[in-house]
């Protein structure tokens, strides 16, 4: 993983920019408060002033005064399937992005922003046909939970296929990726005396899941094995706070690929650690399942470790299978426990049948069970695209984070205005990119995050790379 530090001048200018934006933010808030400027955001009603305030005005300072200024670059509506190319709806605003309205025009752009690693986001082909058939057979929604009437045959088929795909005993699937983390960690780490060691850059769903249970949470530096070992040793030696009793359970939570950094977990080291200290390992493969490894089995195959060494394998069907939802896979005992105690299987409606069918079809194509080698070709195409795209950006002199094999390529821009300018300029070149800033990234590390896909052709990538190089020269983004 490469994480080249930014030049100091750039960091200082980034803070200077934030300082100027904050100064003007306070000035604009003053104008709004004194009535000179109309307030578009939600405010308390006059006759409600004796009640508890609904809106934390300071908490939306950043949103009002920084996010709003670049809001036209974010959450762009698309009106086609998010495959290699997609149609972006054009929007305009007359009041500083407080109200955006569609002009009715669309623009066909190369799609570098969607998670579509293997290119299964298609509205035609075997997956779409099978999903349409499932729609006919089962209908769209499942209006009950897995523990009641929402347990279809297709769900069981999906779970068998997932367990076979990952090479573990059993799997349970859920209709939402975020909920797979946030609703199952409490079912695994319930009660007192448990400890969670979490990577500092873990996804919000892992953080929420960890906070929903009453465990002690310790945060370790991103992908830093020494730091994990140190915290693990301290925790075991000191025991629980106040009573110094031994911990009942210790769970280490990591991700396979970190979607903001493009870095890949050092899985063998974490497995060595968990065996050495008797901890459990929770591996979130939201971005790595299907996108890493010779046959797409994820980060366990990428590192050549036995999937059974990972106690809890989690992943989503969103990024590589063109579907939605998530799974937890592992030993039969674990899965039976989750089927019985997970908040999702108890309260949430099951996954929609066409979505489940989409996953089953794409998973079988990846495994080659459809009798073709299309799955293999897609995996190879993705790996080639990722390496090629990243290496070209590095050659051009851009600051790129993460691992060569990761299909996510974060290009660092540091200054907030540059992400807005970059997004607008690339949109003019008919390229759809995703730009990310605080609080999804550290304050000074705003970035554009390119998501490669097996559906991208080399010509598309070359065109995009030339556009990025032009825009990079104009905006002075080649910091490396």
């Amino acid at each position: 993983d490469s994480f080249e530090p930014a030049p100091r001048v750039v960091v200082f200018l980034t803070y200077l920019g934030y300082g100027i934006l904050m100064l003007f933010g306070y000035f604009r808030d003053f104008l709004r408060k004194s009535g000179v400027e109309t307030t578009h955001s939600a405010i308390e009603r006059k006759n409600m002033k004796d009640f508890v305030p609904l809106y934390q005005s300071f908490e939306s300072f950043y949103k009002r005064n920084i996010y709003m200024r670049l809001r036209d670059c974010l959450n762009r509506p698309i009106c086609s399937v998010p495959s290699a190319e997609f149609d972006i709806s054009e929007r305009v605003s007359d009041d500083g992005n407080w109200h955006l309205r569609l002009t009715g025009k669309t623009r066909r752009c190369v799609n570098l922003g969607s998670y579509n690693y293997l290119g299964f986001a298609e509205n035609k082909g075997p997956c779409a046909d099978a999903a349409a058939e499932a729609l006919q057979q089962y209908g769209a929604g499942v209006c009950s939970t897995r523990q009641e009437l929402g347990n279809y045959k297709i769900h069981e088929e999906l779970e068998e296929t997932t367990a076979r795909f990952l090479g573990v005993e059993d799997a349970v699937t859920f209709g939402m990726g975020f909920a797979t983390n946030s609703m199952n960690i409490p079912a695994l780490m319930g009660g007192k005396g448990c400890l969670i060691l979490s990577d500092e850059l873990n996804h919000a769903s892992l953080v929420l899941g960890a906070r929903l249970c009453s465990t002690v949470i310790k945060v370790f530096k991103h992908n830093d094995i020494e730091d994990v070992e140190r915290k693990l040793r301290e925790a075991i030696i000191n025991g629980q706070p106040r009573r110094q009793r031994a911990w009942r359970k210790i769970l280490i939570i990591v991700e396979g690929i970190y979607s903001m950094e493009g870095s890949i977990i050092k899985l063998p080291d974490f497995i060595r650690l968990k065996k050495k200290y008797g901890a459990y390992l929770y591996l979130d493969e939201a971005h790595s399942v299907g996108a890493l490894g010779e046959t797409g089995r994820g980060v366990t195959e990428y590192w050549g470790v036995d999937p059974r060494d990972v106690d809890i394998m989690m992943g989503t069907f969103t990024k590589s299978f063109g579907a939605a939802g998530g799974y937890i896979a592992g030993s039969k005992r674990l899965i039976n426990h989750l089927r019985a105690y997970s908040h999702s299987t108890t309260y949430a409606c099951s996954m929609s049948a066409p979505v489940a069918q989409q996953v089953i079809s794409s998973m079988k194509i990846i495994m080659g069970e459809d009798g073709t080698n299309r799955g293999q070709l897609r995996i190879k195409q993705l790996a080639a695209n990722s390496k090629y795209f990243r290496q070209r950006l590095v050659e051009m002199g851009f600051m790129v984070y993460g691992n060569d094999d990761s299909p996510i390529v974060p290009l660092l821009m540091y200054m907030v205005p540059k992400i807005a300018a970059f997004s607008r300029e690339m949109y003019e070149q008919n390229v759809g990119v995703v730009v990310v800033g605080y609080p999804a990234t550290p304050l000074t590390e705003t970035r554009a995050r390119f998501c490669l896909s097996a559906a991208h052709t080399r010509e598309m990538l070359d065109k995009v790379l030339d556009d990025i190089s032009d825009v990079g020269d104009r905006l002075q983004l080649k910091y490396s």
Partner: protein
Amino acid sequence: LNSRGIWLSYVIAVTILHLVLLSIPFLNVAQAWTLTNVVHNIGNYIFLHMLKGTPWETNWDQGKSRLLTHWEQIDFGEQFTTTRKFLFLAPVILFILASFYTKYDPLHFIINLSTMLLVLIPKLPQLHGVR
């Protein structure tokens, strides 16, 4: 406040503040230094010890940080970290500089000392979380 370059930016920002005050024609050097010290300390007090919460939604901590000042949120509340030491030292160094350039004039000294105490007392570990 832990990230790279923030201390350099802090020092440059205070320097720019001082140069702007120094460029005001009807202020002499002593007044410019005392004003630098006072503006810095009042800004420091407002941002670190008066404002509570964060200027963005922190939906992952169920609003816990909403009741904490910025100073109490630094390093998740851990005391004696390098960031805290730096933020503790900055007003002291500025006070020493201001005293020197005001030639230890009593009036300036009282103003500088009182604003320095205004920002140092809330930074004491004994007052963490005290309202």
